[in-house]
């Protein structure tokens, strides 16, 4: 599903953030990417939807060489990936419901079908009934769940989340992780970056440990 081979990433004028990362994630896997901040977790995840491009090496997603993708093809790659951003990137000028309608509008879905999907996504993350609220009125955990709902509303095969439990209390964090586990159980490939090792160990899934831009440990499920 996702494969990296000898991927290097250097930001302009900076150090190498990734130094020869090679890994493979199969369809239907649930993988936690751990490591201290600055280890390269975020960069690793950003290479998959081509938000960043590798300086060297290749990234292949679903058979497509993402590192060589034309800019005009990138939107279609991203539609097949569910992305949960570290800073969530919710829009606070519109309701919870309209936040979900945004990705649905790109694909030109009929309004009835779009509404149905939005409600289904809200239901999955336990936010049904909050459609009319503004995201600012939601708690931190609820905002994170809304971000997840927006990522999955187009039914992607891959879900990628960068530090989804940062700034959440233990209870909210666990609730968020359980949502990822539930999606994985229905066949979605899930990649979650987190620095919270204690939380990760509880699930007994595959763990990739990054340190200084290299994979130092690959613990299978």
């Amino acid at each position, binding site marked *: 599903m996702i494969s990296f081979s000898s991927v290097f990433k250097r930001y302009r004028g900076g150090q190498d953030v990734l130094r020869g990362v090679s890994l493979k994630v199969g369809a239907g896997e649930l993988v936690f990417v751990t490591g201290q901040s600055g280890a390269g977790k975020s960069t690793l995840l*950003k290479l998959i*939807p081509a*938000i*960043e491009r590798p300086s060297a090496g290749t990234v292949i997603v679903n058979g497509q060489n993402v590192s060589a993708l034309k800019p*005009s093809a990138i*939107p*279609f*790659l*991203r*539609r097949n990936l569910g*992305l949960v*951003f570290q800073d969530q*990137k919710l*829009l606070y*000028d519109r309701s919870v419901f309209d936040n979900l309608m*945004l*990705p649905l*509008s*790109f*694909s*030109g*879905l*009929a309004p009835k079908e779009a509404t149905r999907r939005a409600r289904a996504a809200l239901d999955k993350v336990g936010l049904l009934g909050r459609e009319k609220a503004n995201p600012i009125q939601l708690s931190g955990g609820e905002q994170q769940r809304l971000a997840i709902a*927006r*990522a999955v509303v*187009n039914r992607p095969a891959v879900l990628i989340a960068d530090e989804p439990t940062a700034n959440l209390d233990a209870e909210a964090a666990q609730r968020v992780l359980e949502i990822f586990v539930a999606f994985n159980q229905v066949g979605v490939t899930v990649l979650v970056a987190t620095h919270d090792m204690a939380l990760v160990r509880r699930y007994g899934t595959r763990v990739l440990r990054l340190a200084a831009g290299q994979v130092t440990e690959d613990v299978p499920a």
Partner: protein
Amino acid sequence: MRAWLRHHRMALRAALGKLAGQKAGGMISALVIGVALSLPAGGYALLEGLVSLAGGVALEPQVSVFLKADASKADADKLAARLKADPRVGGVRFVPREEALKELQGEDGLSDVVAALDRNPLPDAFVIRTRDANPQVQNALAQELRGLPSVSHVQADALWAQRLASLARLGRLAVLLLAALLAFGLVAVTFNTIRLQILTQRDEIEVSKLIGATDAYIRRPFLYLGLLQGLAGGVLALGIVWGGLGLLNSEVRVLAQTYGSSFEFGFLARGDALAVMLFAAGLGWLGASLSVRRYLLEIQPK
């Protein structure tokens, strides 16, 4: 196909919503466009009115030959024979002085003046239609006739028509130049309003790019916004011209009546009015597309 149409409908609705939602901002831009465009459009309407008024006076270029007041009937007959023999002359009409006076009496407002005269001050005259409408031929003929002893004065209307035509051309060119200059200004106005709109929607654009919106999708509502703003400006310009001409005409009618004329300025022809609207809409679209090209590229989410 249906998805594509739905995208366009959504973009149009979003643009309409923005135009209505901004109230002040978008409407002020449309007002600027309208006022600016009303200048060349109104100038054009005035010019066309004046040209049609003047054109009615000297529609067909002709040469008028006035004989000296003391010229005899024999002199007139000699000249008539000479003119008929000239290959350049297509037709000659002799206007005896008595007939000229009668014609003058028939003119608006002059009958009193004519009645007050104690003798006929008008000379005999020939009105010549040349075979060739070329003003050079007419001028050459007029020059020759001026040299004859019995002729007092020759008037070549071709010159008149020529001057009028070149004045009209000059006026049209000035209007066109004005329109071209203002067009640049209008593109700049739209460029700027769309830029501001892009900046206020920066978050939405950034998120949309991140989760799979194509550039065309993101661009579309802004292009429609520019188009609609231009179109609104065009309609406003026509409204200003219409209202302005209406005000002018109420005075022009009074003035024209004193000359016994029913002249008034006509509104732009339907085709011209349509052209103004399309022109304004096109400028709006152009300004928006330049702005979008410049600023949407800048937004590259990380």
